[in-house]
């Protein structure tokens, strides 16, 4: 235990050095934080089960996986370095990215690199995570190949590969692969997998694991309405997320996250879209699923939450209308007038310092 703690500290030390040397601005591109299409939920569906965290091996590779887990559940350790709000990855990816239908890391890892028609560009897994930092975390993404992106990729890979090996009855530890391989993601013919797994499943099958993303729900019977959504929010959400949507901190930790305002995800995050939020909420809220919202309630409350001001879309070059036309009008409220104000015109700063 002690030795692994020392290794971790040493790793942290090198992170700091890396960050100071890193001055290159993050490349901007028209990333829409597009969700991965999910497969329809079926009642008898079984899902990939990642191995227990206690199975993470000792050694340098295991340390990367462990660091990935630690960054995922306590992303605030990167506050002011790469993170500009009070969120942690685990807020939207339940069970530390392990849970099916809560956009599990294992589902995403095997779905990247992904070609995006809209951008005519192939995004690697680390580029997708960079998007999370730039938008969901309202921060500044770590550089390609940085220890943080390697660690998060290693954690995602380890979760997915271990689960797939177990399904294919392949015993033994998850094969260690290089950092360069890790950050690319697994949806490619040259991705190294055990031979038995390559025979058992095609790349395409591995890229479409059941439980990936947030399961879609049918369109609402009535057009979604923030007004009705407010009543849903008051009844089912505000005990944890606060009357004002600003979450609740205990001992400085927002385990109950802010949903709008300066400390939440920005206007470029996938979750700002009403459909994405509705899918997430219907499947994963109220936390621990003590009751089930109707489809209509999920759409309405998603509309209520996402029709509040939040941090600016980092792709906005100074003109809300222009940014709206280029990146929005997509089941979302950016540039839309709510209560007499155009959302996006009074947005909060991108990547503000906490202290």
């Amino acid at each position, binding site marked *: 235990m002690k030795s692994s703690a020392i290794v971790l500290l040493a790793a942290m030390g090198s992170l700091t050095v890396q960050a100071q040397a890193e001055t290159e601005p993050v490349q901007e591109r028209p990333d829409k934080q597009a969700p991965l299409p999910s497969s329809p939920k079926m009642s008898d569906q079984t899902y990939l089960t990642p191995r227990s*965290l206690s199975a993470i091996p000792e050694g340098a590779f295991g340390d990367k996986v462990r660091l990935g887990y630690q960054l995922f559940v306590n992303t605030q350790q990167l506050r002011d370095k790469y993170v500009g709000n009070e969120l942690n990855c685990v807020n939207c990816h339940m069970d530390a990215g392990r*849970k099916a239908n809560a956009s599990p890391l294992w589902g995403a890892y095997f779905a990247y690199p992904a070609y995006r028609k809209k951008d005519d560009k192939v995004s690697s897994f680390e580029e997708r995570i960079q998007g999370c930092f730039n938008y969901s975390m309202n921060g500044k993404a770590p550089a390609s190949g940085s220890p943080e992106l390697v660690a998060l990729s290693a954690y995602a890979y380890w979760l997915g590969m271990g689960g797939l090996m177990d399904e294919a009855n392949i015993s033994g530890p998850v094969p260690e692969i290089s950092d360069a391989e890790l950050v690319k993601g697994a949806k490619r013919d040259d991705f190294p997998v055990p031979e038995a797994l390559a025979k058992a499943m095609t790349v395409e099958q591995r890229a479409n694991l059941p439980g990936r993303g947030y399961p879609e729900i049918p369109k609402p019977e009535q057009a979604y309405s923030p007004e009705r959504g407010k009543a849903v929010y008051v009844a089912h959400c505000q005990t*944890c997320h606060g009357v004002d949507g600003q979450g609740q901190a*205990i*001992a400085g930790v927002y385990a109950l996250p802010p949903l709008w305002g300066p400390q939440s995800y920005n206007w470029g995050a996938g979750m700002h879209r009403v459909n994405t939020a509705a899918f997430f909420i219907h499947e994963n809220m*109220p936390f621990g699923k003590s009751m089930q919202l109707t489809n209509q309630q999920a759409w309405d409350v998603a509309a209520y939450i996402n029709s509040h001001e939040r941090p600016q879309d980092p792709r906005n070059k100074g003109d809300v209308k222009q940014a709206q036309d280029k990146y929005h009008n997509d089941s979302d409220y950016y540039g839309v007038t709510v209560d007499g104000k155009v959302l996006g015109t009074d947005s909060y700063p991108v990547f503000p310092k906490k202290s």
Partner: protein
Amino acid sequence: MKIVRFIIGVAFFGAYINTTQAQSDTAPSLPPSGQLCISCHGAQGQGMEPLGPRLAGLSTEYLVKQISDFQAGHRLNATMQPMAMVLQGESVSQVAAYFSAQTVPVVTAELRGQHVTFTDTAARLAYQGDWARELPACVTCHGPSGLGGGLFPRLAGQQASYIKTQLQAWQAGTRKGDVDGMMASVANKLTIAEIDALANYFANLK
């Protein structure tokens, strides 16, 4: 030796004066109707096991809600229900503020991720839950180390016997008042062994 004792005595006395002065300046006082509470909960709300749980350090918001839950019959307890009826009007918030302001031992918050794996089942449930059963981590709502805040009670340092009876009360339906049955849903998934383990875990957090 005697001198040393004297110095220690003076130091403690000085500290005592300081804290009592500091409290009398800022701390709320207990209204007359609240005098009843201290026979079971202690003068500083430190709790008297097994008569009454610790109230010190619980949030005002939580305490007010509990008194109202006893009054409304959401919490069934032969002793506390009539006691709660004694408190009416603004004395409810005064009593709550008084006990909330009482000091409790400092517990160092353990953040998520400080441990990746746990040998202790209770610690694992507290920090990682068991999602195969849709059981979230306790610390998600109760905060790091169960320090509590708002409507979520502090668990750190609470009596183990009390935490246990409450989890059982949630299971039995004799304690209600949670939104959407969230706490009942969690409690109902716990085994009796897990309840025992969790009660001891939180009670003994330092």
